[in-house]
């Protein structure tokens, strides 16, 4: 597996984590829990963005892996 596909996989995992956190934020009864889940959801989004930027960078450097 190439590095770029691993990074793509991580982005997908982060997306899934973000979705689950958002679900928990909606379903939780405790306000503190809701807030924590929501805050962490935003953190996941930022990390995703960084990884996505890196993915685009890698695709520019090595276009032959673009479709892997």
């Amino acid at each position, binding site marked *: 597996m190439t*590095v770029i596909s*691993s*990074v793509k*996989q*991580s982005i997908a*995992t*982060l997306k*899934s*984590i973000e979705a*689950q*956190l958002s*679900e*928990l934020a*909606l*379903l*939780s*009864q*405790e306000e*503190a*829990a809701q807030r*924590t*889940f929501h*805050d*962490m959801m935003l*953190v*996941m989004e*930022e*990390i995703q963005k*960084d*990884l996505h930027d*890196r993915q685009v*960078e890698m695709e520019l450097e090595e276009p032959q892996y673009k479709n892997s």
Partner: protein
Amino acid sequence: MPEYASIFTRAIIFFIVLIVLTRVLGKKQISEISFFEYVSGITIGSIAGEVIMGLDSSIGHGVLAITVFALITLLVDIISLKSKKFRDLVEGKRTIIIKDGKIMEDNLKKEKYSISEIDSLLRQKDVFNMADVEFAILEPKGDLSVLLKKENRPLTPKDMNMKVANDKAPQTIIMDGTIINDAMAAAGKDRNWLHTELDKLGITLENVFLGQVDSYGGLTVDVYDDKLNVPTPQVRPLLMAMLKKCQADLELFALETQSDKAKAMYNKNAKRLENAIDTLKPYLNG
């Protein structure tokens, strides 16, 4: 009227009277916090018994006696609410038995408790060694309340400086296959959500004996068919595992990459995820 018919009607009448009176007097009577409540409970009961069996006395007099006694009890309860002095008089005061780890012999004598009786009360509180007790109080009801020395008290997360998430009481939303609407509202869930969750578990509503929802929205069910295995909610532990995997991956990328800029970016985000894991730990474990 033959005697058995008379006893039959009396029993039914007093059954109803007693139900009404116990509703009026409320829970306080059962808890028997003070000696007065203990005695008044017995008195009300024995008046009823007396009138049911004693065929000479009239039903009206019996009902009157019971009502008066219940009213007095109620009145005492109401006055005790207002006045502390009256409360102390009727309900009695607590007595300190052990203070700073030392037994107060004078107080013991005043309450006419022997040391072996105190020993027995302590044992009922799982205290076998008197040296473990910092403070003990004899309640008006006759119970002993015990405060152990700090070192002998059960360890709590607070003692360990552990962060734990507070959670709300679980709501029982399904009983005997019927949805409890009040509990659903309290949990902030609707029927659509419930049906989706039940579909996920692969069971029908009629099959559920008991269904509870915890403070994270996880549904736990018990089904009639005990051979059926229902999975317990695993969402949160799984999410934690995913977070940890992702964090490890990012650290791996940081080690593998040649570019310094990318390395810094990966390390920064790995750190961020680590912090997120720490913050979420109390909520996602257990």
